[in-house]
C-alpha cells in the first residue's frame, strides 16, 4: 500500500530507471459483464492483407482460393499465401462468396485492400474437424504445422504469422517463452477478460507453445491492475511449470522489447527481434488460439474485441468472428447517435480513427472506442518546444524526442537517423506528456516515410551507378577486343563490295514500310491490302 502511494505520487512520469507513463486504465466499464458471443451479421468482410504492414511485400500477400459465387462451409480455407508460413484465412461461418473486391482503407496509414465479401447463411454448416488423437504426442514441428494451417497470427496487434515466428525462434535457439498478458493501453480490456474467463485455456496454450518452440522456461506476464485475472491465472497455473510474473502497469510495458528487458534483463538489439537474445514473446490471445488449433483443430476465425466509449450504452467485450463490420458491433452495444462523434480502432494511445463504419474486424483489431469530444477532447494547439525533457523521460526506447523533432524540422537526415528514428515504436508516450502539445508521433511517422523514400532512392542511385560503371567497363573491354577484329572485318567487307549507303537505303525503306503500315492502321484500312501492294 505504501508502495502504491509512492508510485502514485510520481504518477505523471516514469522514474528515470523505469520509463513510460501511467495513464488511467479506463477499462472498468467494459469488464462489468462477461465476454458476450456475437450474433452473426448478414455479411462478413474478410480482408486479405497479410499482417498489419502497409508495405508488405507483394508476394507476401495472401490470395483467395475460392471464387465468386462459391458456397463455403465454416472453417473452410478461403485464402493463403504462396510463401511457406504465410497467413491463411478461414471462413468464420458458412455462406456464399458474394464478391472479392477492393475495400477502401479503414484508417489513415492503411492501404485499400482486397477482401472477400461473404453472405452468411442463417443456419451454419461446418466442415468436420479432425483434432489429433493425442496432441501431447505430437512433435514440435507438427505443432508448428498445425499452427500454420490454422492461420494464427499475433493477436496482440502486430499480426505477424505465428508459425513463421516460431520457426525463426527455433532456429535461433530461444530459451525463454514470454506470454504477454500485460494490457497497458487505456480502454483495452480484451486480454484481461480472456484471462478472467479462459485462464486454463491460456495455460494449456502456453504449454503447447513452449513445446513448439523448444523453450526451457515459460513465463506468463500480467500487469498489477488485473487482480481478478491474477487470481484466475494463479489457480490455473497450479501444477504447471509455467511461472507467473506481475509487472507495474506502465505504458508501454506491454511492448515486447520492454517485456524482454523487464523479465529477462536483456535488451533486444536495435534492428533485431527478441529471438536474437533467446526470447520469444507471444500474446495470450495467440496462446488460446494455439490451444484451439492443436487440441480442437479449430482455425483462427474469431477474437475477443473490447467495445467501449462513452457513446455506448453497454460497453463490453465480445467474441467476434473475423470480418464482422464494426457498425454491427456498435449496434449490439447500443450506440447513442447523439453522443457518437467518432470511432477509434485500437486503444486511445496507439489506435487510429476509423474512416469507415463498415470496416471489418481484422485479426489484429483489439478494441473499438465510440466516443465524443467530451470524453476524448480535441488535441490542443501546438506550441513551441521548451526542451523540458519530459518526453525523453517517458520514451521507452530511450530516445530523445525533442532532439528528433529539432532534426526533423531542420531536415538533417543523418542526425535524425543517428538519434534513432528507426528505433521509435510510435507508442505515443512522448506526445502524451508534452506540455506544449506537440504531435511528436506524427512528426516521426512523416519523417519515417521521407527517410524510407530517400533511402530507397539512394540505394537505387548507388545501384544504377554500379550498373553504369559496369556498362562503361564493358564498352571499353569490347572496344579493346574489337580493334583487331574490326580491321579484319573492314578488309573483308571491302572485298565483298559492301556499301554503307546501300545498307542505309535498305534500312530507311524498312522504316518507311513500318510507318506506312502504322498510318494505314490508324486510317482503318486493311493492312493486308497494304502488304500486297
Amino acid at each position, binding site marked *: 500500500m505504501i508502495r502504491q502511494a509512492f508510485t502514485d505520487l510520481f504518477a505523471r512520469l516514469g522514474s528515470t530507471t523505469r520509463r513510460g507513463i501511467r495513464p488511467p486504465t479506463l477499462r472498468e466499464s467494459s469488464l462489468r459483464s462477461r465476454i458476450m458471443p456475437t450474433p452473426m451479421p448478414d455479411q462478413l468482410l474478410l480482408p486479405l492483407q497479410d499482417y498489419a504492414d502497409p508495405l508488405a511485400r507483394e508476394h507476401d500477400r495472401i490470395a483467395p482460393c475460392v471464387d465468386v459465387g462459391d458456397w463455403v462451409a465454416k472453417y473452410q480455407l478461403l485464402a493463403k499465401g504462396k510463401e511457406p508460413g504465410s497467413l491463411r484465412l478461414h471462413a468464420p461461418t458458412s455462406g456464399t462468396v458474394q464478391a472479392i473486391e477492393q475495400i477502401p482503407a479503414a484508417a489513415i496509414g492503411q492501404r485499400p485492400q482486397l477482401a472477400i465479401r461473404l453472405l452468411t447463411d442463417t443456419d451454419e454448416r461446418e466442415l468436420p474437424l479432425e483434432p489429433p488423437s493425442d496432441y501431447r504426442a505430437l512433435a514440435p514441428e507438427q505443432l508448428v504445422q498445425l499452427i500454420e494451417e490454422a492461420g494464427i497470427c499475433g493477436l496482440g496487434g502486430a499480426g505477424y504469422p505465428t508459425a513463421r515466428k516460431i520457426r525463426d525462434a527455433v532456429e535461433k535457439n530461444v530459451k525463454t517463452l514470454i506470454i504477454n498478458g500485460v494490457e497497458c493501453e487505456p480502454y483495452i480490456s480484451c486480454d484481461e477478460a480472456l484471462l478472467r474467463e479462459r485462464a486454463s485455456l491460456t495455460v494449456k496454450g502456453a504449454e503447447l507453445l513452449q513445446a513448439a518452440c523448444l523453450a526451457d522456461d515459460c513465463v506468463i506476464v500480467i500487469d498489477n491492475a488485473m487482480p481478478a485475472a491474477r487470481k484466475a491465472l494463479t489457480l490455473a497455473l497450479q501444477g504447471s511449470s509455467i511461472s507467473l510474473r506481475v509487472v507495474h502497469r506502465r505504458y508501454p510495458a506491454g511492448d515486447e522489447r520492454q517485456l524482454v528487458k523487464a523479465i529477462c534483463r536483456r535488451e533486444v538489439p536495435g534492428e533485431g527481434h527478441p529471438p536474437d537474445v533467446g526470447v520469444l514473446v507471444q500474446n495470450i490471445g495467440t496462446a488460446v488460439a494455439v490451444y484451439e488449433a492443436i487440441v480442437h483443430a479449430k482455425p483462427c476465425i474469431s477474437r475477443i474485441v473490447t467495445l467501449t466509449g462513452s457513446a455506448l450504452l453497454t460497453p463490453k467485450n465480445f467474441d467476434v468472428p473475423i470480418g464482422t463490420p464494426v457498425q454491427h458491433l456498435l449496434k449490439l452495444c447500443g450506440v447513442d447517435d447523439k453522443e457518437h462523434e467518432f470511432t477509434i480502432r485500437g486503444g486511445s494511445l496507439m489506435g487510429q480513427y476509423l474512416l469507415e463504419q463498415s470496416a471489418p474486424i481484422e485479426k489484429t483489431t483489439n478494441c473499438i472506442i465510440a466516443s465524443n469530444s467530451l470524453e476524448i477532447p480535441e488535441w490542443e494547439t501546438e506550441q513551441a518546444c521548451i526542451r523540458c525533457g519530459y518526453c525523453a523521460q517517458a520514451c521507452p526506447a530511450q530516445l530523445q524526442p525533442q532532439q528528433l523533432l529539432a532534426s526533423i524540422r531542420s531536415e538533417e537526415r543523418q542526425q535524425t537517423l543517428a538519434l534513432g528514428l528507426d528505433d521509435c515504436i510510435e507508442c505515443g508516450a512522448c506526445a502524451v506528456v508534452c506540455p506544449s502539445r506537440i504531435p511528436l508521433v506524427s512528426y516521426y511517422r512523416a519523417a519515417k516515410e521521407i527517410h524510407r*523514400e530517400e533511402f*530507397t532512392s539512394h540505394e537505387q542511385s*548507388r545501384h*544504377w551507378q554500379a550498373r553504369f560503371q559496369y556498362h562503361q567497363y564493358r564498352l571499353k573491354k569490347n572496344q579493346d577486343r574489337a580493334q583487331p577484329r574490326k580491321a579484319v572485318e573492314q578488309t573483308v567487307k571491302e572485298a565483298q563490295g559492301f556499301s554503307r549507303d546501300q545498307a542505309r537505303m535498305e534500312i530507311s525503306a524498312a522504316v518507311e514500310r*513500318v510507318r506506312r503500315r502504322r498510318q494505314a492502321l490508324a486510317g482503318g484500312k486493311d493492312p493486308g491490302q497494304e502488304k500486297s501492294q
Partner: protein
Amino acid sequence: MIPLAENFFFQLLAGSLLLGSLLLAIAWSVVATRKRLQEQRFLVDRINSILPQTQCGRCGHPGCRPYARAIATGEAINRCPPGGDSTIRLLALLLNEARVPLDPAHGEIEPARVAVIREAECIGCTKCIVACPVDAIIGAAKRMHTVIASECTGCDLCIEPCPVDCIDLVERDAAPRYWSLSGLASPAATANREALDGEPCHD
C-alpha cells in the same frame, strides 16, 4: 595549513590527469575523423554520391560524374530534374550555397518513370540497347527487346534512337505517402506552427 588544492602533489596529479585526458581526446577525435573522411576525400566523389545517377544528360553534361566535376568547379547546383528538390538541398548543404529552385531550362520535377517497349512494334534494331547507360534493355539483333523495369532509371535516352518510336515512358508506382509534415494538424495548429517558425512547413 594550506588548502588541499594548493598542495603540490595534488596539483601535479590533477593537472596531469586533466591534461592527459584532453590530449587523448584530441588525438582520438583526430584519428577517428580522418578515418571517417577517407572514403570521400574528393569533393567530386561526394557530389557524385548525391546525384541520382540516372545518367540522363538533362543537366547538359554527358552523365552524372561530369556534372559533379562541373559543380565542383562552380557550376549551378539546380540543373538536375531527376534529383529534384532533395538533391538541390543536399548539394546546397554540402557546398554551403543557397538553395535555389530547379532551373526550368533543364526540365521540370517529374515523378519517377520507367521505359516500356511496345513489343508489337519493335523491329529489333538494337539502337536502344546501345543507348541505355545502365544496360537495362535486353535483346539482340532481330530479336525482341525489352526493358528490365527494376534497372531502368527513366533517363529517356532510348526514346530518341528508336526508329519506330515504340518506347513509352510511364510513371512508376511509388509507395504512397500517408503522413506529411505540412498536413500534421488542423489549419489553426498549422498556422500557429507557421507563426512559430516564420515559414511554412514543407515536406
